[in-house]
């Protein structure tokens, strides 16, 4: 026994064969293990060979980046000029040309705030206040009329700022409403419960577009004569009402996940309903709900693009109106790919963040 141990220590450690480690080993175990996987790999490689080089040629090699529409019509490749030549209109819509620094600044503030809020160490009360201040400043920058800023009619808002405005304000307002609805749905008062259930199920059962139709054609009929509400606000309200119902369901899931003992402990401490919810239940429930909430936020962000249908000039609509210009007709693919890229970046960051948060909170 003793001798055997000695001999093993004495011999050199045998290296694994070259075919099972390194690049070759990796390829063998991940791409060519078995005839079926080999076949799949070869098939996929063939398809990629057929599609990727022509796409790269179209998008990068043969493409035009800065030119006019006429030059594009002659070329075979992608015409990215449709973006570069109309970037300001696509981004800002009909916002007065000289004042476009204002929406730009507002967007930068928003992005800075979002990046600052990413870190969980910064989640304090002061952050909530600074969000409030930032939202007011952003609104002021868009609307103007104070501190020597020239007023800009909301009908001139458009492009990316409008998309972000609809999503950010929509989500901020929908969240509290959703929490109230979820609490109402779990209330023991039958009338309140019934109202909340009807509201949530009604909204979740219909497509957003029907609510947008409602806001654009039916809502004006509800108001007394002489009172009008502007179009953006109406669409915003429709988005808020729609998102709130979905958030309510997420919150309900979170509330149901809190063990009954927590409620009972709070009760035995003599806390009343508001205190129980505010101090015990909601802080725990909201933590559980972060990942599903983010996915609601992502879909709400994507859904803001539906305002195109009621003719608001959001990012998608400004792009379409560029494409209806005879000079730039026929370059939809390039323009849509660009817009898709913007949406993808935003959504990808959000979902990536939610995944990271989920991991952090799991511990």
């Amino acid at each position, binding site marked *: 026994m003793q001798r055997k141990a000695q001999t093993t220590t004495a011999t050199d450690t045998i290296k694994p064969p070259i075919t099972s480690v390194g690049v070759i080993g990796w390829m063998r175990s991940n*791409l060519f293990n078995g005839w079926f996987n080999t076949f799949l790999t070869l098939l996929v490689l063939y398809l990629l060979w057929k599609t990727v080089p022509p796409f790269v040629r179209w998008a990068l090699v043969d493409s035009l980046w800065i030119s006019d529409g006429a030059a594009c019509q002659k070329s075979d490749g992608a015409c990215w000029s449709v973006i570069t030549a109309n970037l300001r209109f696509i981004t800002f819509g009909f916002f007065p040309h000289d004042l476009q620094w204002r929406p730009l600044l507002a967007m930068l503030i928003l992005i800075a705030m979002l990046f600052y809020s990413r870190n969980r160490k910064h989640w304090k009360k002061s952050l909530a206040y600074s969000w409030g201040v930032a939202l007011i400043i952003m609104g002021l920058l868009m609307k103007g009329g104070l501190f020597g800023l020239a007023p800009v009619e909301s009908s001139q808002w458009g492009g990316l700022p409008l998309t972000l405005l609809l999503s950010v304000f929509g989500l901020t307002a929908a969240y509290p409403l959703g929490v109230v609805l979820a609490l109402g749905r779990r209330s023991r008062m039958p009338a309140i419960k019934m*109202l909340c259930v009807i509201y949530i199920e*009604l909204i979740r059962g*219909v497509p957003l577009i029907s609510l947008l139709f409602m806001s654009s054609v039916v809502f004006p009929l*509800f108001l007394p004569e002489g009172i009008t509400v502007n179009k953006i606000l109406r669409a915003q309200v429709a988005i808020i009402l729609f998102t709130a119902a979905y958030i309510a369901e997420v919150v309900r899931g979170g509330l149901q996940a809190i063990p009954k003992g927590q409620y009972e402990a709070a009760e035995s401490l003599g806390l009343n309903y508001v205190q129980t919810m505010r101090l015990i239940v909601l802080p725990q429930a909201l933590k559980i709900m972060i990942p599903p909430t983010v996915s609601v936020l992502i879909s709400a962000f*994507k859904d803001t*693009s539906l305002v195109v249908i009621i003719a608001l000039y959001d990012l998608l609509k400004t792009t379409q109106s560029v494409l209806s210009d005879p000079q730039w007709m026929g370059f939809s693919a390039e323009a849509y790919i660009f817009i898709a890229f913007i949406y993808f970046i935003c959504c990808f960051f959000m979902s990536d963040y939610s995944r990271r948060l989920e991991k952090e909170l799991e511990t």
Partner: protein
Amino acid sequence: MPTIWQNSGLQHEQVKILCKSQRDHERQAMKTDSDHPNTQEVIPFWNDPSKRDFFFQLGVLAMVGCLGYYLITNTIANLERQAIATGFGFLERESAFEIGESLISYSAADSYGRALIVGVLNTLKVSFIGIVLTVLLGTFIGVARLSANWLVAKLAAGFIEVLQDIPILLQLFFWYAFFYEMLPSPRQALNPITGVFLSNRGLVFGIPAAHPAHIYMAIAFAVACILVYFLIRQARKRQALTGLVFPVGRVSLAILIGLPLLVWGIHGFPTAMNMPELGGFNFEGGMNLSPEFAALLIGLVLYTAAFVAEIVRAGIQAISQGQTEAALSLGLKKGQVLHLVILPQSLRVIIPPLTSQMLNLTKNSSLAVAIGFPDFVSVAGTTINQTGQAIEGVALIMIIYLCFSLLTSALMNWYNKKMALVER
């Protein structure tokens, strides 16, 4: 009186959220009061939870009622002032607009009611075909996502990530532009496979020419389905009684394929195809999918399939490896493991979110209005524009979609009850 109410001057909103604990505490307080008759007081009604609940609910209902009354009176006044008709009488009137494609015969001389039915049928058509294709594609991609092949798994992951993160409306616009701008005219139509033509007039493909045999084959297939149903029941009964296993899978497959084939053979194997041919500016014959329909279908299927793939992946991963090992060690064959152990468990995880994705697809099909496919919302929109009766139109849209979703959730509840784990 020692009251526990910190905020007895509770505001209206705060009162609404009142819970059981308070009620219990209240009772406690009442008891202690009754122990000391000297200090006994009449509980004011705002401190009596049951009464307070009642008044609070009454208040909320009254507020909702008032709001409703206010809106209705406003609306009636507005309708009168603008001389807009009310009621659903317009359904009977002549619609005077054409619809591009419909499953039932329709012309501009027909009524609005019929136009709306055409719209509903179109919505159902695109949703049904879309759901079938989505489930197939989604399952395929979900399985590919878990493939041992690195390349395949990464490609599937990329597909899922990219398509989930782009708004469906943008995807629909893209596919619509794909058909109208990027594809050639019918004369230079792309012809990837024999009998399939892609052009800016849509997707055309050959179908078997009409023959009476097809109807009989469909009947034969239906009969085969019924036979298989009874076969499965019989086999189960026999297995329960005697323990003998009947090869249900192979026999039912043979019946399902064999019976229609037999009928086909009796009619002498009619193989004539109705192939599309270029005539004038468009194709004639074959099955023609309009660019709008094709764009809508492709967009919806790809978008929803990305979500379905994630659901399928989660469902497969939810079943631990131990289940497979345990089943194998019991001596079950691979097919039996899948059929008797894995699928019943993962379907329980997969089906509920899958249904909600199907419902999403149906709701998203309403975006057809943006690319001009005459679905229900699009037809209702035209109706609203022509008649001016926005309230009725939007109400119809909401009712129809609510019916879809209520029907689905009823089915879902039935399924959940059937599949729920029976716990002691």
